[in-house]
């Protein structure tokens, strides 16, 4: 049973446009929701994260919107740039000793110049 569902699988956006990636989770015990960005040949790196007591978090051009009642959260990339072309993973973590995370399947974003 997949606990974190991510969509779309791939996304093509024109430079300057808005990229939106959505995730849905099932387990209400999750209490930390990060987004990771991965460039080819590199490991994923934390981009932005949110906790469930906040409905929105913004860092520069990147915003997470969080809907606790719907168990959904999304990443918005404003003014998308070719340098944003990467694979994006949402995740959900539980407050245990290790903070184990469950990842979505990933979204490959291509921003066309």
């Amino acid at each position, binding site marked *: 049973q997949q606990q974190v569902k991510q969509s779309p699988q791939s996304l093509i956006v024109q430079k300057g446009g808005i990229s939106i990636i959505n995730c849905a989770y099932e387990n209400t015990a999750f209490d930390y929701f990060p987004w*990771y960005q991965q460039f080819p040949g590199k490991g994923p790196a934390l981009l932005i994260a949110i906790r469930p007591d906040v409905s929105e978090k913004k860092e520069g051009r990147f915003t997470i919107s969080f809907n606790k009642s719907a168990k959904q959260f999304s990443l918005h990339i404003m003014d998308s740039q070719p340098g944003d072309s990467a694979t994006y*993973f949402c995740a959900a973590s539980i407050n245990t*000793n290790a903070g184990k*995370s*469950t990842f979505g399947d990933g979204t490959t974003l291509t921003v066309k110049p």
Partner: protein
Amino acid sequence: DVKVTQSSRYLVKRTGEKVFLECVQDMDHENMFWYRQDPGLGLRLIYFSYDVKMKEKGDIPEGYSVSREKKERFSLILESASTNQTSMYLCASSPAIRASGNYEQYFGPGTRLTVT
């Protein structure tokens, strides 16, 4: 900066071989993780460790084992490699949650393993 290093970027092994993938982190993190990454399947957790010599199974532990004899080093072992274990393997580390309140995982660059 946190650095997580993996012993090999590319590895080619034969079916039935015993394979060791090594991961080292330099930030004194308590937690370490092994994932495999396959196209369209995201990152799937194989094993994790929250302390030296402590380990727990992740979502797909079958065919794998791990070892953590020192805090900075976490090894993934394929006892008898099979072709369906051809994949990208990612190691990650994170600080103790209760001490730091920080869930962020720091990833290594990955090892692309091909089993022929």
